[in-house]
């Protein structure tokens, strides 16, 4: 059997172009799976570990002012594990050399130590010392944006009083993984800060001595969260509670979780589409390659090799290709997943990334590719070994051509002999031609879905910032709802009041207005729509679009791999016929047309399939991704169709050129002599 194994390696070397193309399809499918699942897994695992390690609270409540002594009895509420009262105060900051207004919020820490809940992860320095009222810990995004280090000083304005404070440490908090100022969607680390200081100092500055205005609660395992929230609401109602809520209403948690959820959906839908398409292609292409080895199988049989030994031989060949593709796919998938998560890390402040490659994922990826390829292989091997060796070694009988409806048509009459050969070949091998059309069409569909993601995100941002602001259409991002103002007042039980306003501004005065509004202590936040849009666009470009760009690239490789293999096999199957035509006096150009015309026709037929399958894939993804927070619009523009068609045409042209080179090297005599 050693020599047979040697043959596997030599065959692999001989088929290297095709084998590489197949490995590329496998690698792409595996890459998508590994990339999406690992990216998703890394983010959710990191979130989970960070929350657990830092004792992230389960329930939060804000009150106007409550005496500290009422906090301890709250521990008695059934299901409550830990209660952490604290002081929260809005603040303004001033930094030398930075003129824009900076807003922030200051949270209290038990003097000189970590709180029981929402503990800080110190990236640098230490907590404020027990007796110090002039030390703060600052959020790491803010510190990074301004190049702050422990020991730097800044001016803090709390309750109208300015104090000079020193940075004792730089920290991350599970509460502020995603740091945005209230009312904003995107972080602005330069202009928004979170600070922590000793409780005694903050309470003194904010007039909260012996009191708290913010409460964090952790729950026991199996606690009834809703019941705890109800009990807290009852206990805190008289202190001006706005209502206790779970961590799911905390913006940072909500945003990060939704992003992870979205990645999780992408991690199922997109790889499923990619793997299914690659599986189909593998099946088709492996089958055709094996069919091309019919004569070799016959010889092995003539020597006395059994069917099992022959099947094993080809299984080995397939396995090597699949493993090569899988290993490349896993390595590249892990690498791109790392790059993706690194991008997220710029927006999500986690202390460290928990990255792992799970065994089941590897097994799944390799397994799907393996099963698909083996099905194609074994089916073809089975067909080959079923034949009598004598029959397999004979040149195949002239295939059964019939004069079908096509023959009488004006089309056929108007064509030259070489074009007739093309049409008859396609008509004769309807199933094979159909498989090629579907295969190429599906790869075009993948191109379309990749481009769709790119476009949909841009469209969504346009909708949000250019159209929604006119208040008359659906909002694709955010969870806002609209209601008549008087109805809202009634609901909230308050008099006529407004809490926000959109301003249409003369651009000449925009800067002055912005500065002046920022100075107003009553104004909680000011945001320029243009800046917000730019921030969102940048975020989307860096995350979602990176994701989509990877897919477009992979879809392109798959499209090429499929058309190339299709062309190679068409060439192998026609080699003898083409040589005969040449010997009969056909020119190279005429002979090339027989082959290239067939490739072109198949590719053109594949374009509508690409459109249909791509639209279907996009719809599927769109349905899956419609979440509370972000809704991708389902819009397929003519450009998308054009893109998919262009992708197929470029891939086919490239493959055609490669085949043309091969055709130029066609040895007529050898091709004719070789018994198939």
């Amino acid at each position, binding site marked *: *059997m*050693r*020599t*047979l194994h*040697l*043959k596997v390696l*030599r*065959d692999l*070397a*001989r088929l290297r172009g095709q084998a590489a193309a197949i490995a590329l399809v496998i690698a792409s499918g595996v890459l998508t799976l590994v990339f999406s699942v690992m990216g998703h897994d890394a983010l959710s695992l990191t979130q989970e570990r960070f929350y657990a390690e830092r004792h992230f609270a389960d329930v939060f409540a804000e009150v106007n002012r409550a005496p500290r002594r009422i906090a301890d009895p709250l521990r008695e509420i059934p299901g409550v594990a830990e209660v952490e009262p604290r002081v929260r105060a809005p603040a303004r900051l001033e930094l030398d050399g930075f003129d824009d207004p900076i807003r922030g919020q200051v949270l209290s820490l038990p003097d000189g130590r970590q709180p029981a809940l929402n503990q800080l992860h110190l990236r640098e320095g230490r907590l404020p010392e027990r007796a110090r009222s002039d030390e703060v810990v600052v959020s790491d995004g803010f510190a990074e944006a301004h190049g702050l280090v422990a020991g730097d000083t800044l001016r803090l304005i709390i309750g109208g009083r300015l104090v000079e404070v020193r940075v004792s440490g730089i920290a991350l908090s599970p509460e502020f993984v995603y740091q945005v100022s209230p009312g904003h969607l995107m972080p602005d680390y330069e202009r928004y800060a979170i600070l922590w200081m000793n409780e005694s100092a903050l309470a003194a500055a904010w007039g909260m001595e012996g009191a708290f205005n913010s409460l964090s609660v952790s729950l026991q395992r199996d606690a009834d969260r809703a019941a705890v929230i109800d009990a807290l609401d009852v206990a805190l109602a008289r202190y001006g509670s706005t209502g206790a809520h779970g961590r799911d209403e905390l913006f940072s948690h909500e945003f990060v979780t939704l992003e992870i959820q979205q990645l999780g959906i992408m991690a199922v839908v997109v790889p499923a589409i990619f793997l299914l398409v690659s599986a189909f292609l593998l099946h088709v292409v492996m089958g055709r390659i094996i069919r091309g080895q019919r*004569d*070799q199988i016959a*010889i*092995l*049989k*003539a*020597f*006395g*090799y*059994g*069917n099992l*030994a022959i099947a094993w031989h080809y299984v080995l060949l397939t396995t090597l290709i699949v493993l090569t593709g899988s290993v490349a796919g896993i390595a590249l998938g892990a690498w791109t997943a790392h790059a993706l998560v690194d991008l997220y890390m710029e927006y999500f402040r986690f202390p460290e990334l928990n990255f792992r490659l799970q065994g089941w994922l590897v097994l799944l990826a390799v397994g799907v590719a393996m099963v698909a390829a083996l099905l194609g292989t074994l089916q073809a091997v089975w067909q080959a070994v079923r034949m*009598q*060796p*004598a*029959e397999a*070694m004979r040149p195949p*009988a*002239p*295939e*059964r051509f019939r004069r079908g409806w096509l023959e009488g048509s004006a089309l056929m009459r108007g064509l030259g002999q070489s074009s007739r050969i093309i049409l008859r070949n396609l008509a004769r091998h309807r199933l094979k031609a159909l498989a090629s059309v579907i295969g190429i069409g599906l790869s075009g569909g993948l191109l379309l879905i990749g481009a769709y993601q790119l476009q949909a995100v841009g469209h969504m941002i346009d909708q949000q910032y250019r159209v929604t602001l006119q208040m008359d259409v659906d909002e694709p991002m955010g969870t806002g709802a609209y209601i008549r103002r008087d109805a809202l007042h009634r609901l909230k039980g308050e008099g006529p009041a407004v809490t926000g306003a959109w301003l249409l501004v003369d651009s000449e005065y925009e800067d002055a207005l912005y500065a002046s509004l920022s100075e107003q202590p009553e104004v909680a936040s000011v945001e320029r729509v243009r800046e917000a849009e730019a921030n969102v666009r940048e975020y989307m470009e860096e995350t979602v679009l990176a994701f989509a760009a990877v897919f477009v690239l992979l879809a392109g490789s798959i499209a090429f791999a499929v058309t190339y293999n299709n062309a190679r096999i068409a060439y192998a199957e026609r080699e003898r016929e083409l040589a005969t035509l040449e010997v009969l006096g056909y020119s190279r150009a005429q002979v090339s047309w027989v082959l290239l015309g067939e490739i072109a026709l198949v590719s053109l037929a594949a374009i509508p399939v690409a459109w249909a399958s791509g639209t279907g894939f996009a719809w599927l993804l769109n349905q899956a991704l419609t979440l509370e927070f972000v809704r991708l619009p389902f819009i397929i523009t003519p450009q998308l169709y054009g893109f998919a068609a262009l992708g197929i045409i470029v891939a086919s042209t490239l493959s055609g050129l490669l085949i043309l080179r091969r055709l130029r090297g066609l040895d007529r005599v050898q091709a004719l*002599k*070789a*018994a198939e």
Partner: protein
Amino acid sequence: MNAIPAPAAGFGRREVIFHASGVTRVYLMGEVTIRALRGVDLEVYAGELVVMLGASGSGKSTLLNIMGGLDTASEGEVRYRDQDLAQASERTLTAFRRDHVGFVFQFYNLIASLTARENVAIVTEISRDPMPPEEALALVGLEDRMDHFPSQLSGGEQQRVAIARAIAKQPAVLLCDEPTGALDSQTGIRVLEVLAHINERLNTTVAIITHNAVIGEMADRVIHLRDGRVDSIEENPQRADPATLRW
């Protein structure tokens, strides 16, 4: 139909290695039904060199394929020694080919991705009592070309590799389908010399099918086939040395 001829004088009692009677073979080629064999009766004796002569379409390749277990008869009886080939299962035929028969084809059918030595080894590795591939290649005079790939060998050399591959397992029977068909006459004669040499040296039964009547002169017996039947059988009292053949 011709009766099976009695063993000729001078051969003594000869052991029948192949026995065929009433063999027919019908197959579909495209949409045409081809009756390749229309009732063949034949015996082949152990150790003889027999040439089956016939024009294109006479059914000689089909007969050879059936004798070698590469194909099965539509009707009739085919036996190798005591073994019934007509009713044999696929598995039995595979074992039969592996253990008893060596094939030489007109177009050599070497595996392009393997060297001469490896092309022989691929057979010896599954044989019960093979000679080393090197020895087989030396027998056909290719000891210096063992590590060449088929594409680096001339047609005659490729055919000699194919012969080495066929004899390396020390088969009882060597079946050769137009072994000189793709070769010029000088190279063809060299190949025939190798076949005669194997027949004498290893006492292997050799059956050669050809449309070239000259080759019949080197055989013990010449079986003429026509239209799927045995037309006549002649015995050569004296086998010619292949080196003296001209065509």
